[in-house]
Structure formats: C-alpha cells, structure tokens
C-alpha cells in the first residue's frame, strides 16, 4: 500500500530550507560584488584555493541524485549500480591530469573555449550547442527534482514550488557568478556531507548496527541478515561487457562535462588545481561510500525490518528512512541537504550555459563587443538558462527528461574526444572534429531508446536508457572519425588553406607549458594508430550481441 511520505509539520522544513537560501544569497552577494569581467564571472578570477575548490568540485558533481536517485537505483539494480557509481569519482582526477591543467594554463573559460581556439568557429558552435543540450538536461533534472521535493515532502504544489524556488535559485546564481557559486558550493558540500552521514548514523543505530559511528564503511554486521533475506543482493548480475561499457559511457563521458571542467579553471595555480583534486577524491569517496551504505540500509530495512516502500517512492528512500527512524527536525535538515545538492549542481550547469552562450557562441560570432557588454550578456545568459529550465520543467519534453547519466554519454561522444585528442595530437583538425562531433552525436542519439525505440543495442531498458550501450558504440566511433578524417584532410593540398596548422601547433606547445616548438612533440602517428585500432575493436564489440 502506498503511503503519503510528507512532513507532518511542513513549516519546519520550509524554515530550514529558507535559512539555507538566505545563507546562499548572502555568500553569493558578498563573493561576487566585484565581478567586473567575464573571467571573474565564469572562473572566479582564477584564484580559488585548493580546499574550497576541492569541496566545490565535489558539491558540483553530487547532484540531487545523491539524495534521491542513486538510492532508488541501488534498491532496483543493487550491487551492479554501486559498481557503476564508484568510477564516477574519476571525473576530476582524469580531467585534471589529461587536459585540465593545460586548459587552465591556456586561460579557458569552458571546454568549448579551447575547441574554438583549436578547431575554429564552426566546430566550437556545434560542440557548444551539444554542451548547452547536456547542461539543460542536467539543469532540468535538478529543477524538476527540487520542485518534486517541495511537492511531495513539504506539500507545496509543483508549479508553485517550481516558480518560487526556481526564480530564487536562478537569482542567487546570477548574483553570485562563479565566485559565489564556488563559495556556496563549498558550504553546500559540508551541508550535504553532514546532512547525509549524521542522520544515516542515527538510522543505523536505530536498526541496531554496531558500526553506526562510521556509517560509510562499518555496516558489515548487517551482511549475514541481508544474505539470508536477499541472497542475490551482492550478485554482479551482468557480464564483463556491461561493466566495461561503463568506461566509455561514464568515465570518458564525465571528461566532456563542461561544469566539472570549469571548476579546474577556477584554481589559483596548477599546483592548487592538483591539490583540489586530492580534496575532491577524499570528500567524494566519503559521501559516495555513505550513499552505498544508505542504499544497503534501505534494502536491509525493506527486506528485514518490515519497512514498506512502493516502487513509486523508491527515489525517496533516504528521506523515508529518516522519517521512519529519526525525529522530524532531522528529516527537515536532510531535505535541506538534498536541496543543497541540487542547488550546487544547478549553479554549475547554469554558469556553464552562461559561458557557452555568451563566450562560445555570441563572442565567437561577434568578437568585438566591449567587456562591459560581454559581462552583461553573461549575466543575462545565466538568468535566461535558468528561466528556460524552469519553463521546460512545467511540462518537460520527454526526450529531455532522461537519465542524467545518458547526458554523460552525449558529452563523452561530442566533446571529450575533441578536447583529449586536441590537447595531445597536433594533427587533429577542424574537419575531424566536426565529423566526430556530428556523426558520433547522431549515432548516439539514434541508438538511444528515446528517438527510435526499436533501434537499440541491447533491449535492456536501463542499459540503453543510461547510454551505456550507445556510448560504447559512439564514443570509439567519434575518436576514429576525429583521427582518420584529420589525418586524411591534412594530406589533401586543396584543403590546407582552410586549416590553421601553425597556430594549432603553437597553441598545443603553449598549453603544455613549452616556450619553443619541436616537431616531435604531441605528433605521434603510432599513438593515433593504436587509438584507432583499440576504438575499432570496442565499437565492433558494442555491435555484437549483449546477451541481456
């Protein structure tokens, strides 16, 4: 039987959430009152310290899904979903070592800023349009999630919550810019960690777990009861191919997400960016492990403790466990934590949309506008992106409301190969980049279950829906097209006038820190060849039967 999971005293929840909003507004206003240029608006003047940045990176990454979506999927998919989620921690470390420090050295605002300088206007506008789609899908997910949280837990009608809180959120992000978003995200990370882990400790104590004082790892005394009640919980269920597909879809996918990469550019120095990745790994590992524990406790509570959660309520698992085992004021704090998680991600998305529209599209098409006008367009773009996501959330188009994880794959297909190969191989050119982004992106969209439901690779709903199968085919194709098309077009004399080879070479040497140019650097045909062969093998494997 379905239960109505709502706070008995919604005023309590509203007061706590309202207090956090006041805090975020003050921090945003104070942090950003001196934003005088686009550089300050989008990368916080590139002077953010390592700890603040590491916390902000983690908060930007941890969306509302940490509180709402993941635990539901653990409830459904059990251990395979935990295995899938674990590698998401690689995002910032891999961005930092593969291209983040190079783009920070270049002074990029967004990943597409690099694509513009490296491959020219057309390729950068195509990449920017894909990135805006990814960012809007992401932002829309958060906006809908926040409105649903207000509706189901605090009893505020969906549309009312969407407009009131949506506008409040967009307002604070626009006022705060990147400096405000960074400081707020660091605060939000502390709120998320505390509001997730401390209540979890109380839940574990109530259930009788002896390791309640460190919830992320100390719940093994519940394992025997779990194995008795649900012996399949720890089963891997899927083949190695499924686990392998996580790498192109999510590990490489995360490398193309603009709002994550932008965090690296805010660092005060390259050393600081590298220290930030250490803080990121530590804090994200802590909260991720607590998330798995929450999922485990949820499954444990439903299978052994008589707690009933209907399928429709599965995504509210974290909140429901708090309602069952903790006092109401604790649940109010958890709701504030969930909203904070949504806000930090949303602010990253909206800043990315702002940078993409104003820097990567408008400034590319009209390079001579004044700094003042550029900054004003930036604020308008952030605000317009927010309003667009509110309006889309009223009656969201089905294709936009897909799993956020599917958006990872789209970023991995259309953006990541262009940046990775562009940073490490001088031969990559605009023809290759355009072919990779357009054809790779089209293949990924075609084999997704959202456009042509009959053209899918596995027929297993969650695998196709999360983009695992599609990305395993489209990401390698994108790498192959970029390398092969570039290699061939570089050798067609009639096209050489349309390429900027010397400028590309100088850019690559400079962003790696070199003051001179050497022909042997970043020019390996063997490396490119190996990438093509490995990519071809992966793409062929993706086309073979999945057996699901």
């Amino acid at each position, binding site marked *: 039987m379905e239960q109505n999971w709502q706070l008995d005293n919604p005023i309590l929840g509203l007061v706590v959430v309202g207090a956090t909003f006041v805090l975020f507004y003050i921090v945003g206003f104070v942090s950003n009152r001196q934003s005088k240029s686009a550089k300050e608006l989008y990368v916080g003047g590139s002077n953010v310290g390592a700890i603040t940045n590491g916390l902000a990176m983690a908060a930007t990454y941890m969306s509302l899904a940490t509180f709402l979506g993941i635990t539901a999927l653990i409830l459904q998919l059990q251990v395979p979903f935990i295995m899938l989620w674990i590698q998401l921690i690689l995002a910032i470390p891999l961005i*930092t*070592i593969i291209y983040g420090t190079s783009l920070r050295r270049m002074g990029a605002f967004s990943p597409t800023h690099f694509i513009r300088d490296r491959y020219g206007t057309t390729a950068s506008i195509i990449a920017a349009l894909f990135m805006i789609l990814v960012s809007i899908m992401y932002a829309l997910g958060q906006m809908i999630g926040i409105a649903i949280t207000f509706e189901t837990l605090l009893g505020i009608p969906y549309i009312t919550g969407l407009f009131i809180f949506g506008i409040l959120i967009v307002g604070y992000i626009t006022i705060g810019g990147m400096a405000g978003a960074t400081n707020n995200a660091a605060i939000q990370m502390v709120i998320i960690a505390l509001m997730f882990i401390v209540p979890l400790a109380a839940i574990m104590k109530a259930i009788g777990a002896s390791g309640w004082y460190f919830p992320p790892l100390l719940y093994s005394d519940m394992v025997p009861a779990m194995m008795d009640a649900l012996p399949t919980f720890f089963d891997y269920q899927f083949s190695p191919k499924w686990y392998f597909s996580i790498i192109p879809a999510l590990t490489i996918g995360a490398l193309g997400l603009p709002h994550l990469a932008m965090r690296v550019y805010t660092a005060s120095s*390259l050393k600081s960016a590298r220290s930030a990745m250490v803080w990121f790994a530590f804090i994200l590992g802590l909260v991720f492990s607590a998330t798995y524990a929450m999922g485990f406790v949820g499954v444990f509570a439903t299978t052994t403790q008589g707690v009933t959660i209907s399928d429709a309520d599965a995504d509210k698992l974290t909140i429901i466990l708090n309602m069952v085992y903790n006092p109401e004021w604790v649940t109010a704090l958890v709701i504030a934590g969930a909203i904070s998680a949504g806000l930090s991600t949303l602010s990253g998305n909206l800043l990315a949309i702002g940078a993409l529209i104003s820097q990567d599209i408008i400034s590319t098409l009209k390079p001579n506008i004044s700094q003042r006008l550029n900054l004003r367009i930036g604020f308008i773009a952030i605000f317009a992106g927010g309003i667009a996501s509110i309006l889309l959330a009223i009656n969201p188009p089905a294709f936009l409301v897909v799993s956020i994880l599917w958006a990872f794959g789209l970023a991995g297909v259309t953006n990541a190969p262009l940046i990775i190969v562009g940073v490490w191989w001088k031969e990559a050119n605009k023809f290759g980049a355009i072919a990779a982004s357009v054809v790779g992106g089209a293949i990924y969209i075609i084999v997704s279950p959202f456009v042509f439901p009959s053209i899918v690779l596995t027929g297993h709903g969650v695998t196709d829906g999360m983009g695992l199968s599609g990305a395993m085919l489209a990401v390698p194709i994108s790498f192959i097209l970029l390398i092969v098309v570039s290699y061939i077009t570089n050798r067609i004399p009639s096209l050489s006038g349309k390429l900027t080879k010397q400028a590309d070479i100088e850019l690559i040497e400079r962003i790696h820190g070199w003051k001179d140019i050497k022909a042997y650097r970043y020019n390996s045909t063997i490396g490119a060849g190996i990438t093509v062969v490995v990519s071809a093998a992966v793409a062929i494997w993706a086309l073979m039967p999945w057996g699901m």
Partner: protein
Amino acid sequence: MKAYKKEVQFTIWMTAAFILVGNVGLIFSIFPVDAMLFGFPVMYIVPILMGWFGVFLLTLVAGKIGNRIDDEIERENDTLGNADEAKEV
C-alpha cells in the same frame, strides 16, 4: 625531450591506473572471487575501498609527479632561453 617523454608517459600510465582502480568491479566480473573481507564479500567491499582510498592515493601521487614534471618543463625552457641568449651574444 626528457620532460616531454615523462609528461606523455605519466599521463598514459596515470590514466590507466585511475581507470583500473575506479573499475575494480570490471576485474571481478571477469575473475570472480568468493571470499569475505572485513565482514563483506570481497567483490563488494574491495571496489568500494579502491574507489575511495585507491583513487585518493593516486591523486596524491599524480599531484606530486604532475608538479615535478611542470618544474622540469620549466627548467628545459630556461635552458632553451639561456642557449638563445648565448647565440645572440
């Protein structure tokens, strides 16, 4: 040449190490293990521990080596600058 080689090798090996440590589940899906560790099935807790502490340790190593390679590139740039100055004289 030396710093360039180090930079490329560091990026390739470090990327491989990160992907491996973050995807221990893939390894266990190929080579299943039926044992317990700290009260959990090995195939459950090892990927979680590696996905936290393994990645954390690698970020420490990657940060240190990355900084050192930056310094080496800087030193090679300086040598280059000195050679140019010598040529001008």
